[in-house]
């Protein structure tokens, strides 16, 4: 049976999340009340039958390592295969590779030893709940070299600017990969490639001193490769800035989006912790919000997302905000359009109001 092995390549992700990425890389930013950004790519791979996943992680990956652990929560703690977190460590004096080719070069064994003949590659900033079985079947049926997963955006936003656009013919052969901002068909950064071909491209790219596997190895060699595109339908989001992060989290407060992302037969998996159910006190008022376990609510929460273990004291109002793990909001506080990173303590009587387009962000572990 044909199978895929997985690769989550964090090398070329955009890390423009200001306060949220002071202490972590973009892939481990908390998202959606309970998850981290990388959970979506990782869960989609596992839910697509991938049983070995490698992660290219270059910097600030302490929290990523903590989150992933042995991979147990994604059923990736396996005797054969499983999870490989590949840090940037090399001492080969003859190594001439650059950019993400360094990762490929230094981890050839992962690909060589893997049992699969196909590789499913992804970043961490395309958020969806997708089973790639159909895309894989499509890849095999068409006998393609590479299949790029694309999605059509209804309303183009600034966060979409940095993504490649795909031009294809009627039956999905890719003719061009462009930066044409008017083209709403975006490349999601998720693609399937034949393993042998991947290894060849890696060698070629290194030989020509290239530093970007996808750009130099696939985009620039488009004419020589059989590249297909497969359209992803349904709810998805690109998250690569504070603004897109805030907007896409808020969109989950619309029930249909919440259901499409979280309530598919295959759930998004994440690091499981032991938190008790949410505790509502006598006078709590909660409306149109998403709350994770371990929260204690005595105040008012409206149109907001609360991560695990948040405490909202009496007489406090929280609106249109994202409150991450273990924040404590004391009595008489008013928060609107605010993002609080983990472990923030807001003291009694504070008022913090951001704008809808530019939410006010408080970095991790601050007392305000």
């Amino acid at each position: 049976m044909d199978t895929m092995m997985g690769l989550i390549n964090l090398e070329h992700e955009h890390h423009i999340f200001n306060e949220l990425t002071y202490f972590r890389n973009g892939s481990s930013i908390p998202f959606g009340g309970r998850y981290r950004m990388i959970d979506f790519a990782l869960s989609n791979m596992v839910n697509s039958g991938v049983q070995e996943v490698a992660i290219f992680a270059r910097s600030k990956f302490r929290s990523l390592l903590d989150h992933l652990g042995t991979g147990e929560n994604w059923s990736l703690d396996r005797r054969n295969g499983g999870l490989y977190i590949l840090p940037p460590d090399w001492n080969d004096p003859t190594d001439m590779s650059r950019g993400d080719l360094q990762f490929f070069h230094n981890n050839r064994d992962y690909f060589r030893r893997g049992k699969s003949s196909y590789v499913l590659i992804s970043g961490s900033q395309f958020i969806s709940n997708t089973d790639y079985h159909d895309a894989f079947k499509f890849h095999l049926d068409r006998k393609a070299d590479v299949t790029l997963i694309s999605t059509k955006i209804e309303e183009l936003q600034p966060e979409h600017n940095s993504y490649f656009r795909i031009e294809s013919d009627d039956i999905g052969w890719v003719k061009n990969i462009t930066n044409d901002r008017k083209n709403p068909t975006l490349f999601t950064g998720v693609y399937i490639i034949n393993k042998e071909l991947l290894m060849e491209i890696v060698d070629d790219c290194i030989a020509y001193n290239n530093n970007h596997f996808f750009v130099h190895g696939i985009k620039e060699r488009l004419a020589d490769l059989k590249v297909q595109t497969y359209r992803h339908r349904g709810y998805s989001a690109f998250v690569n800035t504070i603004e897109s992060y805030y907007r896409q989290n808020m969109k989950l407060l619309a029930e249909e989006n919440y259901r499409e992302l979280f309530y598919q037969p295959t759930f998004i998996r994440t690091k499981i912790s032991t938190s008790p159910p949410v505790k509502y006190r006598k006078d709590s008022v909660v409306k149109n919000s998403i709350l994770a376990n371990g929260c204690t609510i005595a105040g008012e929460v409206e149109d907001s997302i609360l991560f695990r273990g948040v405490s909202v004291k009496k007489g406090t109002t929280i609106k249109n905000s994202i409150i991450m793990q273990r924040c404590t909001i004391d009595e008489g506080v008013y928060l609107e359009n605010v993002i609080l990173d983990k472990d923030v303590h807001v003291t009694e009587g504070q008022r913090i109001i951001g704008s809808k387009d530019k939410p006010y962000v408080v970095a991790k572990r601050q007392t305000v």
Partner: protein
Amino acid sequence: MEEIIGMLLAGGEGKRLGALTNNIAKPAVPFGGKYRIIDFTLSNCTNSNIQTLGVLTQYSPLELNRHIGNGKPWDMNRGTGGVSVLSPYTAKNGGDWYSGTADAIYQNIHFINQHNPEYVLVISGDHIYQMDYQRLLEQHKANNADATISVIEVPWEEASRFGILNTTESLRIYEFDEKPLNPKSNLASMGIYIFTWETLKAYLIKDAQKKSSSHDFGKDIIPAMLDNDLRLYAYQFDGYWKDVGTIQSYWEANMDLLDEDWGQALNNKNWKIYTNDSNFPPQFIGEGAVVHHSLVNSGCFVYGTIESSVLFKNVVVERGCVINQSILHQGVKIGKNTTLERVIVMENTEIPEGTSIRISEKEEPLVINQEILSGMLTLSGEEI
């Protein structure tokens, strides 16, 4: 050699819990929005650094076995020790079901001998409490005791409902009265014992040979030890403790979690209650929802009003519903405009739109599952 190992009696059928224990053992009954009753004792063991635990199962053990698994949620998946599920078995000489609490331990003497502990902690999986068993052990050692029994002070007027231990001022037990008419003390046994293993083993073997014995710790072993003037001491516990043996007490214990002081215990960083967790997404609280004084677990969709209730995972409460003082187990779906008061709804039950079930304060809360529900609907022609 290990200093102490735990033996957890989890075979109880829990007859008085009615439909709640139709297919599962009492310790596996869901509790507190995401736990099972046994999680409290399992977590007590983990938090008390008991590293070897035998769990004795008997009645409908599937759910319980699946829940415990290899013990991972309680950090009991260890190379040596850890958790072992001990079910009755047949051997060359035939083999038997466990016929009493003492018999269950007797039949697993070989298991305890393998670990060769100095002390054995005997507990059961059907009480809700948080206790550091190490403190019990410390006192046991300080008294140079043969057995130490944990006791809790009950109101004097209720003392005749319990097994009452009569002690000297230094808490040495000289008498055990099962449900005494005129109690001499208000110290009730909690069914938590530490025994010095060599002593207990001798008594278990002797008791097993006694045909007339009911092979029970409270009825046989403890009285026999007292008869022989062994050093038995009481350990006084003053925290929250609840036997969830009846539907009324099960309901009460769930409601107690809504109480500010005791309920916080679930969220105590130094004494976590561990359980097998799930991948359900965070709960979704809709536009018109009202939630007060309640516990709500992940995967729930709430559009109606929830007052003083406990919702397990993946419960849906539609618009116009009023759920009051009720417990909704996982996967329960409540149709629009339904009113429930003092009701316990079992796993995956779907309550049709417009249903109204209210149980008064004087009655025991009502347990319903799909079967009971369809019976009720036929009886009353859609109007309950």
